[in-house]
């Protein structure tokens, strides 16, 4: 049997979104060999996702060109991390096969995922995340003429609405769970951060409603309607073809936690990877930047990524030069988290028969009496499916206050050949 090929690099960057791009570009002048891997087909992350339905902003082009222009940066798209077989080494898999990558310094730029909460009907075809709909449209999903309701929380709802409209969807309603006072304060604060003032205008969208949340999706084999609870306590039913619902973002910390990195203990980044002023995590040689340290937008990710890239190659002065920028965008992130804090009322979203775990089809009623995540996993199979609890684990944290345990390898569903190749490699080494 063929073993898995072994490769080496000085700096390995996981994630090619704004933070990962900035980290690689900042580290490049040192001459270090840099590899950037990302599980998407092209660099850009979620915010700068390219595709037939995307129109990339100039900043995205600039960073992509910078990445392409460096001979010592190698980008491996369509590649995911499976495991950490040894310290200083990650097992990677792409469509073709597997590779063991040895690294000198590791920079985690693993981004964030949407918080997707269960509500009656959320498994119907036609229901997606809010950022999820945006990503699907950018990748070519046709939505022309589709009546679309966007719900959940955060500025991403407005960005999703803009993308859907540009693709010809009829956006009927944008339902934000935060209060008018809270959103208005956020809008007023936007002028304090460069380039953000224009975003305040989008808050005046005539379809935008505050203190408003999804109750249920209706339909037999697909979405036909949505029920929303409005600020006045009344419910309204809207006929629609699509519901895009997301409640903000959750830092992707799985890989960091598997490698032993501590999570931050307080502030808005409490569920993100803990980093110091140089973006160093609690594990020597491992840095983290961007949304995986707490979500706060692409400007913060670029600043953190730049600092991490400089720090990883020992350029302390260049790293320090970006500290003010980082602090400024941390301020923006804190404001974002305050303004769109989730209401405890969202715990009432699922009904007894609402599936919480979409992989194993585990209903809310089966979880109510569990005493924690491990109990739910062992006795109800919640989180035992292909997504490995990435969706229901986040939901259970909000619904029941359960903290998921540190993830174990493989980090994502993996081909047997990858694991078998690894095993034979180990066997060779022992002989």
């Amino acid at each position, binding site marked *: 049997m063929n073993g898995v090929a072994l490769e080496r690099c000085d700096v390995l960057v996981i994630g090619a979104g704004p933070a990962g791009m900035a980290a690689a570009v900042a580290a490049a002048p040192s001459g270090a060999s840099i590899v950037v891997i990302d599980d*998407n087909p092209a660099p850009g992350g979620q915010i700068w996702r390219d595709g037939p339905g995307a129109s990339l902003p100039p900043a995205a082009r600039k960073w992509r060109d910078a990445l392409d222009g460096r001979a010592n940066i190698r980008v491996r798209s369509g590649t995911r991390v499976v495991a950490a077989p040894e310290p200083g080494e990650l097992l990677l898999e792409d*469509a073709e096969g597997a590779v063991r990558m040895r690294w000198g310094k590791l920079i985690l730029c693993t981004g964030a*995922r949407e918080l997707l909460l269960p509500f009656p009907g959320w498994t119907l075809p036609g*229901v*997606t995340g809010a950022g999820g709909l945006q*990503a699907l449209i950018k*990748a070519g999903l046709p939505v022309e003429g589709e009546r679309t309701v966007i719900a959940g929380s955060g500025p991403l709802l407005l960005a999703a609405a803009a993308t859907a409209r540009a693709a010809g969807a009829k956006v009927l309603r944008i339902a934000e769970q935060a209060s008018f006072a809270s959103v208005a304060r956020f809008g007023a604060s936007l002028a304090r951060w460069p380039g953000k003032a224009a975003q305040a205008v989008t808050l005046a969208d005539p379809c935008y409603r505050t203190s408003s949340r999804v109750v249920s999706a209706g339909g037999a084999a697909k979405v036909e309607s949505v029920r929303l609870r409005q600020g006045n306590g009344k419910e309204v039913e809207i006929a629609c073809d699509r519901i895009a619902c997301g409640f903000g973002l959750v830092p992707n910390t799985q890989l960091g936690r598997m490698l032993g990195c501590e999570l931050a203990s307080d502030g808005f980044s409490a569920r993100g990877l803990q980093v110091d002023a140089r973006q160093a995590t609690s594990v020597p040689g491992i840095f983290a930047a961007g949304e995986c340290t707490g979500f706060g937008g692409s400007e913060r990710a670029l600043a953190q990524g730049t600092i991490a890239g400089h720090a990883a190659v020992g350029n302390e002065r260049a790293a320090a030069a970006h500290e003010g920028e980082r602090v400024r965008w941390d301020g923006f992130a804190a404001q974002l988290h305050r303004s769109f804090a989730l209401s405890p009322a969202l715990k009432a979203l699922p009904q007894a028969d609402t599936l919480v775990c979409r*992989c194993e*089809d585990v209903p809310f009623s089966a979880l109510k009496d569990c005493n924690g995540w491990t109990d739910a996993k062992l006795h109800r199979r919640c989180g035992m499916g292909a*997504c490995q609890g990435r969706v229901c684990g986040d939901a259970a944290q909000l619904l029941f206050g359960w903290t998921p345990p540190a993830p174990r390898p493989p980090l994502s569903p993996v081909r047997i050949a990858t694991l078998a190749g690894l095993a034979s490699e180990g066997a060779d080494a022992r002989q």
Partner: protein
Amino acid sequence: MNNGHTLLNIDGRLVRVKAGSSVAAALRVAGGTGIARTSVSGQPRAPFCGMGVCQECRVLIDGRRRLACQTVCAEGMRVETSE
């Protein structure tokens, strides 16, 4: 690729999509509601998170299990839905 389009095969049907489209988009272009798989209790599921997290859009692509939302359509690609 022809005229900026890609032709692929989804469950035995030829489907023409804009070049660069994801397989998730192609499932919808193929017609219906874009179903990728059937859940353990028999429910139809379509792409949901759109970014490689939820695994709802897993399909067989040229015989290998892959995520439709993270795979770009290629000329002649064979996609099989349902597990």
